[in-house]
């Protein structure tokens, strides 16, 4: 982007540009039931998708963790251990992964969640999930639309193999 290719590189350049455009719209849409064992299957699908659309290892790890936390919150709190639908949409771009999670569980207020960490000495067995979501995501937004919870966030990072990504270094 923004680089003028040499004449003899034109075809390569066009192919690269094409690839880039394809990459930025690579998208995964999944719909599944919100039970904890089903989440593993869902995360495996995400793994398969990310293997053919490689992202930086750190982006992969952070995304997997954030999704696991968000999905268990939906199962436990959103649906109160009952089953419900979850829709996951991922798009991979040069600057990481943008994710949208939709469910039809109880509404919640993310502003009140995960702002503080339990004191380590208190040996709390819970209360870390939303803190981790906050720590590892950017541009986190929550919308309640009708009966739907819509959670969107971005995991920033360089795409595997990219030496330098301008937008990432600008946002860092």
């Amino acid at each position, binding site marked *: 982007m923004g680089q003028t290719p040499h004449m003899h590189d034109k075809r390569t350049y066009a192919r690269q540009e094409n690839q880039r455009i394809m990459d930025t719209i690579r998208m995964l849409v999944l719909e599944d039931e919100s039970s904890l064992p089903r989440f*593993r299957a869902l995360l495996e699908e995400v793994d398969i998708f990310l293997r053919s659309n490689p992202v930086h290892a750190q982006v992969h790890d952070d995304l997997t963790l954030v999704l696991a936390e968000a999905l*268990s919150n939906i199962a436990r709190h959103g649906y109160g251990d009952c089953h419900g639908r979850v829709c996951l949409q991922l798009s991979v771009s040069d600057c990481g992964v943008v994710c949208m999670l939709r469910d039809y569980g109880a509404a919640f207020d993310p502003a009140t969640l995960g702002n503080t960490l339990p004191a*380590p000495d208190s*040996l*709390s067995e819970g209360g*870390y*999930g939303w803190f*981790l979501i906050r720590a590892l995501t950017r541009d986190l937004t929550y919308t309640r639309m009708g009966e739907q919870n819509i959670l969107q966030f971005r995991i920033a990072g360089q795409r595997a193999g990219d030496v330098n990504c301008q937008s990432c270094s600008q946002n860092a």
Partner: protein
Amino acid sequence: MQLSIGQSAGALVIDVLETRLDAAVALAFKDAIRSATAHPGSPVILGLSNVEFMDSSGLGAIVGAMKLLGAERPLELAAPSVGVMKVFRLTRMDTVFRIHDELPQMRDLSAAE
């Protein structure tokens, strides 16, 4: 829940043979640790080298195991992967556990399921 149990000097060593410690196995993990720690030995050293993924439920289960053992029998961790260590660091629970780089050589007691 697959664990390998052994002893090293005075310590009880429990090597977790699972690749994931998450919400789906948190309860099974706590139960398995409860039975494994029926074997004598202190401290209890939990080997995490096989665990590729741990979420906050997995972390909670390890903290629960630590509380189960009480102050007399400390729970220590060994060989966490980069991803697992990140969860300990972000939640500052790395300040609570003694974390060894490697699992000590152990005399095998049994392989428990």
